[in-house]
């Protein structure tokens, strides 16, 4: 970049800063009606206007520092949290980062319109430069918002994973004193910790003597999963409950043997029904079909 060009760019940035400062109120009033602000700051219109003013202030700060293209400009600092809140709120309403960025692009038109109004009378020579500076700055704001939207999305995913952890480990009561945990999906360390906790709690709450861990829905049993299972069984035993692992499919049984895992300390049954029959029998309960074949009344 030539030196004169740089000087021109700097003066355009300064002029833009001055424009944003002087038109702060008008811009804020009009942005407050844009969906990006209106739907996020719902307490009152004043709340939305204040939020808009904070963004205008940040933009004029960035403009006066001359770092129009810098996503990391310190001027954005004071509103980063607010922008993150806005992005998170929009993404919770089902908007993608791209759609949120489009909403931010909509804010530019308002500012451009006001800038054009400024240039009434004899067209000023610098006006196109200021317009360019404004366009660049609004593009940068869009990127900042997009950045926060993406991290808000990541947060959402992490939260959903956590929810899934808890939802996917129900402890069901099968019979008086017999509980069952159908395990489905990957049994990583975080997941097996949740399983262990909810199982032990259920043992206490339901005074369970038998706990059936059904692994029909676990696709892979490697040494770590096996270790988790053995620890869970040992912990349940300490609580006075006997664990039965059911649902070991033939392919998994062969693989466990080749891996060299010794599950002989763990009571296993091939199906949940077998495990339940075992637990019932141990309680002195026998299940059989009535000789006359009639269904009970």
């Amino acid at each position, binding site marked *: 970049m030539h030196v004169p060009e740089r000087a021109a760019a700097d003066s355009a940035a300064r002029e833009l800063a001055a424009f944003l400062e002087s038109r702060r109120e008008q811009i804020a009033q009009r942005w407050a009606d844009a969906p990006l602000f209106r739907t996020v700051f719902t307490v009152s219109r004043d709340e939305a206007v204040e939020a808009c003013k904070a963004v205008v202030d940040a933009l004029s700060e960035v403009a006066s520092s001359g770092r129009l293209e810098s996503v990391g400009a310190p001027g954005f600092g004071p509103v980063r949290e607010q922008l993150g809140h806005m992005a998170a709120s929009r993404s919770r309403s089902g908007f993608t980062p791209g759609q949120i960025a489009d909403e931010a692009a909509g804010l530019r038109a308002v500012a451009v319109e006001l800038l054009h109004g400024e240039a009434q009378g004899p067209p000023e020579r610098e006006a196109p430069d200021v317009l360019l500076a404004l366009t660049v700055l609004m593009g940068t704001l869009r990127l900042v918002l997009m950045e926060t939207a993406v991290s808000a999305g990541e947060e959402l995913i992490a939260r959903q994973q956590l929810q899934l952890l808890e939802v996917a480990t129900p402890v069901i009561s099968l019979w008086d004193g017999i509980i069952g945990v159908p395990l489905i999906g*990957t049994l*990583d*360390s*975080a997941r097996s910790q949740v399983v262990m906790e909810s199982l032990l709690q259920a043992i206490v709450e339901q005074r369970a003597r038998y706990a059936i861990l059904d692994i029909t829905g676990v*696709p*892979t*049993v*490697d*040494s*770590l999963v*096996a*270790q988790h299972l053995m620890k869970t069984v040992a912990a349940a035993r300490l609580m006075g409950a006997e664990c039965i692992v059911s649902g070991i499919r*033939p*392919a*998994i049984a*062969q*693989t466990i043997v*080749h*891996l*060299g*895992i010794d599950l002989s300390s763990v009571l296993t049954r091939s199906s949940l029904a077998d495990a339940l029959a075992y637990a019932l029998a141990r309680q002195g309960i026998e299940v059989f079909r009535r000789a006359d074949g009639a269904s009970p009344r």
Partner: protein
Amino acid sequence: MTPASEPATVTSLPIGSDADLAWVRHQVRQFAAELGFGLVQQTKIVTAASELARNTLVHGGGGQAQIHPLHHGPARGLRLLFTDTGPGIRDVELAMTDGYTTGGGLGLGLSGAKRLVDELSVETEPGQGTVVTVVAWVTRAPAVRPGLG
């Protein structure tokens, strides 16, 4: 080994978290199924991959997995590479022993994985990192070998 008769594409996957391990298992299963591995074989190779990828993550500090589909004439197979730039393994023979662990595991990952595939080799240099390579071939019509379990 003879050169592959078909230029097969290589898939590289990062290993940096538990979620990555789940994705590696998923991808390996997908490739194995497409190449015609039976259910038991699929389960074996996926389990071996799970062990080795976890070693890459836990002992190697993260790295990557590579999946190479193999086409040798009518034969179909998979070569998997697990690469890290971690501390390396000082004594490979010891590490391959059943029950040997430096990290409170069962010590069955490496030795067990070897029994689940056709070939397993370890290239490692203390301080430089580790590459574990495994190869498994699709077995046609599971042969009944008398006298063997």
